């Protein structure tokens, strides 16, 4: 993947202006591009040890798990709540293993997000936001780590009241029971799904914050429920999301990849005859409708579907392997499509992006990277065509691979060992599951 290099000016925390070098490349594409700052926080680190992890099934431990179902009296409020998953806790050896000498140096003490220009920020740290409560940080050897629960944006851990529910939550953090569960399930599924799916994260442990980052204090409730903020620490392999980034991005950019738009007749031709048809518009019913119906059928135990009772297999799904699209690389950043008031599309616009401020011109570091990527795609497409192979469409292949990867993860979940009863399907991935059969 290419990288764009640009010199830019920025205000330093001391108020002066300095030249900094900003290189956009795989880090920004796959991990994030909204910078955050981190400060060392009071507290300690705890190592997660999967070999020592056991289920907390004693009567006293289960009582604590169950107590989380109710509103808690703690820290001066009587309606606090913490996540209450329907499962027992994960037990780790006590006292906790605090020897984090094997961790990257930067992570050997708790970190918390602070404002970008904070004088407390650890200098020279490359970190990017991930949602409101998490961030990713790159360490010296080039590896990235996820800090899940490192503050609500840069506000620390805050109390938020939901008046409709009559509850108060701490926002921006994990807790000891959610941190242990994240690390436990990540390690368990990573091992059990090896060969069919990849976990994005590897468990390391957690930060346990001390005052002043304990908005409900350090003492547990009378039932033993802890409300001390934790942060889950894991090595990570990426953060761009399938829904918000990849699928939404492809949808926005799709017209730029196509030389011509396929007509309805050719699109309908890829669906088998037995695909149910919408009686209103005579088009194949959407895959979303088909699979939502399947999900309901499975959940309620009435077969493959409520309205469409047939199996979800090749008899109903589109056959896209040979479907060909006329593709080309998108225009360069300074030759983007622009619609004139007359309705004509001209290609003399600038690359734009959508942000919280609306649609605006993309910054130069993204333009450089866009251009290098577009040129690389152009060369790759030319090479594929020159090869004369059975390349139908790289876009169709990409969408196909997205479904395949989701499907083999869902299929892997179905093979995870269990000792007793079965849970009803809870996920939307049944579609992908069927697609990868």
């Amino acid at each position, binding site marked *: 993947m290419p990288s764009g290099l640009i010199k830019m000016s920025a205000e330093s925390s001391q108020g002066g202006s300095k030249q900094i070098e900003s290189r956009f490349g795989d880090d920004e594409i796959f991990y994030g591009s909204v910078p955050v700052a981190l400060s060392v926080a009071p507290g300690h680190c705890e190592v997660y040890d999967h070999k020592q992890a056991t*289920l907390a099934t004693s009567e006293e431990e289960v009582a604590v798990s169950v107590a*989380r179902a109710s509103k808690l009296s703690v820290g001066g409020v009587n309606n606090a709540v913490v996540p209450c998953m329907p499962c027992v806790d994960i037990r780790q050896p006590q006292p906790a293993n605090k020897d984090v000498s094997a961790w990257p140096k930067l992570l050997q003490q708790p970190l918390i997000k602070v404002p970008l220009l904070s004088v407390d920020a650890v200098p020279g740290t490359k970190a990017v936001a991930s949602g409101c409560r998490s961030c990713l940080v790159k360490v010296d050897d080039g590896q990235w780590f996820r800090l899940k629960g490192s503050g609500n944006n840069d506000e620390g851990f805050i109390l938020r009241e939901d008046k409709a529910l009559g509850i108060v*939550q701490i926002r921006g953090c994990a807790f000891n029971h959610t941190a242990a569960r994240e690390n436990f399930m990540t390690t368990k599924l990573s091992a059990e799904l090896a060969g069919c799916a*990849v976990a994005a994260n590897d468990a390391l442990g957690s930060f346990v914050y001390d005052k002043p980052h304990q908005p409900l204090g350090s003492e547990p409730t009378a039932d033993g429920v802890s409300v001390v903020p934790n942060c889950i620490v894991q090595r990570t*392999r990426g953060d761009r999301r399938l829904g918000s980034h*990849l699928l939404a991005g492809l949808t926005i950019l799709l017209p730029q990849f196509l030389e011509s738009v396929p007509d309805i007749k050719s699109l309908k031709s890829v669906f088998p005859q037995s695909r149910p048809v919408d009686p209103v518009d005579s088009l194949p019913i959407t895959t979303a409708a088909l699979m939502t119906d399947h999900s309901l059928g499975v*959940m309620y135990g009435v077969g493959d579907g409520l309205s469409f009772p047939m199996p979800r297999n090749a008899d109903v799904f589109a056959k896209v392997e040979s479907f060909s699209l006329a593709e080309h690389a998108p225009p360069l950043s300074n030759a983007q499509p622009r619609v004139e008031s007359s309705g004509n599309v001209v290609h003399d616009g600038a690359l734009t992006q959508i942000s919280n401020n609306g649609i605006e011109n993309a910054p130069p570091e993204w333009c450089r990277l866009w251009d290098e990527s577009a040129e690389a795609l152009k060369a790759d497409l030319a090479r594929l065509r020159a090869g004369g192979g059975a390349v139908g469409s790289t876009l169709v292949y990409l969408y196909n691979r997205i479904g395949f990867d989701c499907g083999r993860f869902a299929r892997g979940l*179905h093979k995870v060992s*269990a000792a007793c009863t079965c*849970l009803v399907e809870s996920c939307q991935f049944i579609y992908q599951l069927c697609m990868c059969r």
Partner: protein
Amino acid sequence: MSHVSWGTYSDAMCYDGQLHCNAHANNMVVLAPQDGKNKATQAPDQFLAFLDLDMAFGTDDFLDTFVMLSVESTRLNLVLI
């Protein structure tokens, strides 16, 4: 049937009839190219990876905490067979 839930359940943070659900498309992430390679062939093998398991549970460690809720709620979708 799956023996693992990605995290679909109800607790005191939910409105009546509402569920937490971590089984959504944004809990798959795009792998950086070097992480998606087949270790033996070095060919691209995996595009996506799963994450967000802090609310995941399985049949082995299931505990019915929902019955302890003081609020009357509808229990529509999390059903044991």
